[in-house]
Each structure stands twice: as C-alpha cells, then as structure tokens.
C-alpha cells in the first residue's frame, strides 16, 4: 500500500515537472512544427492541444506496455517502428470512433488528428519514458503532464500572437522569427518553476 502511495506521489511530481520545468515543447523543442503553424488562433490551438493531451496520455501507456513486450522478446531496437505504428494506429482508431459516435466533435477535432501522427512530441514523450525507465503509474502521470504542458504552451502562444497583430514587428522578424523569440521568453518563465516541488 505504502509503495503504491509513493508511486502515485512520484507520478504527480513527474506530471508537474512535465508541465512546467521540463515542458516538452519549451525545453526539448518537440512539436515545434504544429506549434509555429497552428498557433494563430486560440480556438484552433485549444483543439489541437486537447487532442494532444488525449493522444499523448493513451499512447504513452500503450507504448509502455508494448516496450515491455519488446524487452521480453529482446527486440528493443525495433521500438522506433513499433512506437510509430502504435501512434498512427491509435490516432486512426480514435478518428474512426469519434467520426462514428460524435460527428460534431469530429468536425472540430478531425482535422487535427492526422497532424498528431507526425507530431514529434508524442514520439518524443514515448522515447523519454523508455530512457528514463518510468514505471507504469509514473508513465500515466508523465504522458498526461507532457500533454498538458504542450497544451498550455500553445494556448499561451496563440493568445500572445493574436495581440501581436497590432504591434509593429521588424520586417525580417515577422512570422516565425517573433514566434521563436516569444517562445524563448516563455521558456524562461517556465524554467522559473524549477525547484518549486523539489
């Protein structure tokens, strides 16, 4: 009982770290491509962010199980292909389920799902989970936390960018340049949380 309690505590700590101090987008730059291209409006950013939270949590758990199987079969080098296939298959599956049961949600979320398959952040989270040797419960916390971190970052960026339309940005910096500078400042702010929870 005690060990499960401490596991859950560890999972919560990992979750917190993944949201703030080790934010997957702002410290390891994963998922930059959709981040720079889809962060123009808060609403679309929220849609994509929500989809990322869901897919990341589920695929991290699925891939954890899959990796255990690979270790058992001594086929660890095969993990890249397996992870990619699981992510792609899961996204496809979710797309079909949503399409079947809730066409309205599909209209809002549908266009984002294929984007997620190539989102480096998802694969990155799965690979980090393997390298850091997380246990099952910690993996759930980590997957969820990484998703939330990504969500927060893209929402904040979209909010800032809508304001940016009114400001005068130097010619060469417009578009991606200024986005990166803002992301840098956000990264600074997020790193400021270091040490909050030990």
């Amino acid at each position, binding site marked *: 009982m005690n060990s499960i309690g401490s596991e859950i505590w560890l999972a919560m700590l990992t979750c917190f770290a993944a949201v703030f101090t080790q934010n997957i987008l702002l410290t390891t730059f*994963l998922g930059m491509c959709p981040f720079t291209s889809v962060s123009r409006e808060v609403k679309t950013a929220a849609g994509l962010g929500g989809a990322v939270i869901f897919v990341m949590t589920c695929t991290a758990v699925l891939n954890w199980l899959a990796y255990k199987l690979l270790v058992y079969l001594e086929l660890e080098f095969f993990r890249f292909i397996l992870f990619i296939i699981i992510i792609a298959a899961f996204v496809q599956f979710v797309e079909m389920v949503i399409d079947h049961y809730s066409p309205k949600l599909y209209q809002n979320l549908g266009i984002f799902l294929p984007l997620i398959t190539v989102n480096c*952040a998802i*694969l990155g989270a799965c690979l980090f989970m393997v390298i850091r040797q997380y246990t099952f419960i910690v993996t759930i916390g980590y997957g969820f936390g990484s998703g939330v971190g990504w969500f927060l970052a893209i929402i904040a960026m979209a909010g800032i960018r809508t304001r940016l339309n009114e400001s005068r940005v130097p010619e060469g910096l417009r578009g991606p340049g200024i986005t990166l*500078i803002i992301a840098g400042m956000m990264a600074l702010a997020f790193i400021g949380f270091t040490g909050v929870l030990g």
Partner: protein
Amino acid sequence: MSPAKPTKQIVLDGLWRDNPIFRQILGICSTLAVTNVVLNTAVMCISLTLVTALSCLTVSLLRNWTPRNIRMMVQTLIIAFYVIIVDLILKAYWPEMSTQLGPFVGLIITNCIVMGRCEAYAGSNPPISSFVDGFFNGLGYSFVLLAISVVRELLGMGTILGFAIPYFSSPYWDKWIIMVMPPGAFFVLASIIWLFRSIKPKEVKK
C-alpha cells in the same frame, strides 16, 4: 509535384533559396535540443543528412510500386529503417554519444524535413536527383544548426568543439549561461532567421 530539376539548381535550392529552415521553420524539433554543444549537433546533422538522402533514394526507387494511399506509411517505415541503422551504429561504436543524444536520434523519424523531401520531391522524381535533393537539403539544414550551436557553445561555455577559445574562456568574458539553456536556442534561431530574412527579404515572400 515539382518536376525534375537540373542538379545545380537542386543544390542551390537546398542550400540557400529553399533552405528548409528559413523558408518554413520545418524540422527543427529533433535537433534544436542538442545545439548547445557543437559536437553533438554535428553528429546529429550528419545522421540526419544521411537518413534524408538515403530515404529519398529509396522512396524514389520504390515510387512506381508504392500504392498512393499507403505511401505515407511506406515512407515512414523506410525512414525508420535508416534511423534504426544509424542508432545501432552509434550505440555500437560511440556509446557515450548515443547516451548523450538520448531520444533525439530516434526522433529523426518524425523530422518534418525527411518526410517533407520524400513526399514533395522523391515521390515523383528519379532516384539520383532525389538523392542529391535529400542530401543538399540535409546540408542546408545542417549548416544553420551548426551556426546556432557555434554561437551557443561559444557564448555559453567559451569553447568550440570543447577547445577553449581565447578571451571567451577567460574570466573577462562573463559566460552567458542562458545560451546553454533551452531559451538560448530560441533566441539564437530567431536572430539567425532575422539576419537571413533581412539579407534576402524579397525571395522569402510567397
């Protein structure tokens, strides 16, 4: 789909005119995180260039036998195949580098440049020109990232490739710790994009 181009034009496009980083901020995901040290960046860039060139070659060779509706899956598998080879070679001959790069070698699979070149060029062009296209796009990408890593390592640690640089490694130079931390990468990349877009602002506009 773009038609086949003369080799000289492919080289110029990949390195400069259509440089994947300046034109569309693509593919920085997997490599930006290791740009705080020049050596790691160089290894990553070499791996990425090789993977891009070889995947383009393979995709192009198979282009007439790949059904259109599953081509993405086929391309991903081809890319993953080369990435696994690179990963295994690194693990076998340079284990320290392999642990330092961590998950980032594997992340070449989802790097948008590799997929982008396979999809945009190699899928509809002959093998040799696809190989050249992939190779020079990889090089164009590498030289920007190497520039970033040189700036970051020099300002942040006062060294380049681990060698101390006069003045920057002396006590007179207050090391910019921020440069080796993640935000530094954002700032340096933004400045470099700013610089290059100012040099050729007309061509960037689409």
